[in-house]
């Protein structure tokens, strides 16, 4: 075929449509990889500076017995595994892992459940629903410390509107943060309140991507609502649910302001997750080396958990 200008057509010449980017010019393999390296270099430099170097520093410090009050310990690598051996014998550390596990499972499960339910209820077209969606964003956009203070007020028996309401209903008015079991429940409630909008909005977005024809077909076939949910909606939103669960799980391990403001890990250590315990060791007691050992173990556990979830997500998507 000949072009209007009478030239032979070429794959690599100027595109037919003005302002369209030119097709990439194929270069030799080494040129290509050199270009890629150059393009990636700035990003890799930043990544190295802000993530990899601090992480290497964390690992190095975890091999020392660094105590802020004894500066000479900062380079004391004489017993590099002492911190890790101490962790292995530290009952409070293992207890903190259990607390972390309870908090993560409870908060992620409830956030996903409430988020999913809310998304199903809000998956209709209405101006009121649009307004409701916007208002549901509020807890999530509040700074975490503000959310924590709100709940502190709600859980303090002396001033709690929640307890006042319970009193009006002739129900018991518990000292929420003073009982070990209840204190954990209180933290779960506050965390779920703050973060359930994230799964809700994500799932809602996924629901709205489902082609309407599928619902029509199901309707024609006489499918009931549960069957529509199970066979049409759930397969579509499953990858979203996995990703949201992964994000929330990682975030739940990082949760700090709620613990700090509401209970400081108490009563006793009933609400002390691992990150709070590591923080106490490092910043309250000055044992930075030991705190770093715990932090490194937390990183390993979190990465392992995330990889397991990602692999599971990959299998789910492959199946579909």
């Amino acid at each position, binding site marked *: 075929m000949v072009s209007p200008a009478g030239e032979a057509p070429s794959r690599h010449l100027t595109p037919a449509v003005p302002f369209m980017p030119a097709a990439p010019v194929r270069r030799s393999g080494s040129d290509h990889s050199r270009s890629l390296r150059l393009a990636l270099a700035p990003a890799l430099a930043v990544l190295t500076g802000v993530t990899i170097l601090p992480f290497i520093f964390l690992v190095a410090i975890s091999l020392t017995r660094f105590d802020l009050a004894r500066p000479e310990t900062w380079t004391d690598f004489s017993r590099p595994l002492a911190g890790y051996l101490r962790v292995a014998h530290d009952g409070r550390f293992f207890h903190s892992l259990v607390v972390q596990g309870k908090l993560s499972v409870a908060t992620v499960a409830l956030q996903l459940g409430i988020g999913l339910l809310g998304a199903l209820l809000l998956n209709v077209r209405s101006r009121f629903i649009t307004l409701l969606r916007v208002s549901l964003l509020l807890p999530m956009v509040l700074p975490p410390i503000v959310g924590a203070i709100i709940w502190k007020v709600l859980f303090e*028996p002396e001033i709690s509107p929640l307890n006042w309401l319970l009193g009006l209903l002739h129900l018991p008015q518990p000292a929420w*943060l003073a009982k070990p079991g209840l204190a954990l429940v209180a933290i779960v409630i506050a965390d779920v309140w703050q973060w359930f909008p994230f799964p809700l909005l994500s799932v809602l977005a996924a629901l709205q991507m489902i082609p309407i024809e599928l619902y029509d077909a199901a309707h024609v076939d006489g499918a009931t609502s549960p069957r529509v949910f199970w066979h049409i909606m759930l397969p579509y939103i499953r990858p979203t649910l996995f990703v949201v669960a992964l994000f929330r799980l990682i975030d739940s391990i990082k949760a700090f302001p709620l613990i700090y403001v509401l209970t400081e890990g*108490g*009563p006793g250590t009933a609400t002390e997750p691992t990150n709070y315990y590591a923080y106490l060791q490092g910043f309250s*007691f*000055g044992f930075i080396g030991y705190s770093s050992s715990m932090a490194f173990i937390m990183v390993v556990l979190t990465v392992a958990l995330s990889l397991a979830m990602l692999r599971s997500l990959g299998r789910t998507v492959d199946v579909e």
Partner: protein
Amino acid sequence: MAADWRDQRMTRRDVLKGMTASTIGGVLVAASSNLASPGARATAAPAKPFAGKTIRVMMAGGPYWDVVSKLAPAYEEKTGIKVIVEQVGFTVLQQRLELELSTGTGGHDVVQMVMILIGRTIKAGWAADLTPFIKRDQYNLADFVPGTLKPFTQGDGLYALPWIPDSMTVVYRKDLFERAGVTRFPETLDEMLAVAPKIHTKETAFWTCENNWHWIWPLFLQSYGGNYFSKPPDDLTPAFNTPEAVRSAQIMVEMLAKYSLPNAVNIDIAGTQAAFQQGKAAVLLGGLAVVSGAMDKTRSTVTDRIAFTRVPKGPAGFFPQLAMHGYMIPAGSKQKEVAWEVIKWLASREVEMATVEDLNQLAQCRYSVLRDPKTRQRAIWGGVDVTKILQESMFRAGAGYMAYRTVPPFRPIGARVNVAFGEMISGQKSVKDALEAVQRDAIDILAQAGYPVKK
């Protein structure tokens, strides 16, 4: 009739004229002062010896600093030193002190020396020794009650000037005691435990105190003959599982679990103060700075029914606890000379009296302030001189029984004690088990902090 307003407007030329005139005037004034005799200059110079200097101070926040801020402009006018006080929460303060002092950044030239960090701070070399300044200026320490200086003294050095002596004191509701047929406040802890059920009701708890258990427990512990360590500060062998420790903890836990507020385990200073002010507890036990909040007529509904008294004693004696806080100069400060001037001012009679007058702040360190008629007038409540309770604590603490609190590894051990009491009060562990665990952990903590002891 006044002239039209337009006639009174300043033109740009007027402004320029004014600026020129004032510049020339300023130059002339400066020149004339420079031309003055050397003798005149020598006398004029000390008027503002530190002109242009700024000193940053970091302290635990509170209304005290509002009073100091009011005095600061006059101090700046007099000395040329601008004092900026950064107020932070007490927990945050301790963490920031650790980081700032250990890195020697010199971000602040005057900081609070917290009692439980004294040993750690001095041993790590984070605090400047004030002795050379004191000797040079012949600074008078005799006006400070002796117990207030002791915690900051190590060897021949003095590492801080005292700020607030928080002496453990009791304020109680006379009306509730009388109604229960109790004519006086219990003198011993055993009596207190016996009286508690007569006064405790669902509406009004017998007593309340802040949940800083490593501060409250030693009153019980030492009164029953125990201590945190065998012989602090020299022998730090932990003594948390002794019979005295167990007995004292059992009494305290029983009193908290049965005769305190439902949220006793996690109530903080503000909460405990508010509970007493609102009539929800018959006894408030705590530092004088906390307890004296009961006198605040703007917040308290019970001011006309309260009385102050000493804390109860035990079979082993009378051990009113005393927490001292002070003003220190970080070793990393680059303006130690100016910081010393500021410390002298902050710890002065003038500043202490201002806080007495403006805040009813009775926890003071100077004899001259405690004996001042204005202080005494405020201190006498229901016939009891509250400052006498304080002075008695300061004198007794001078004997050294507070040494457990200033040993370098106190902070993590104190925090461990707090955890144990949380577990005991909320019923997660028995007193014996919880204290055995503290004993084991204290040995580990001491080893980690460089104080190995035999297991």
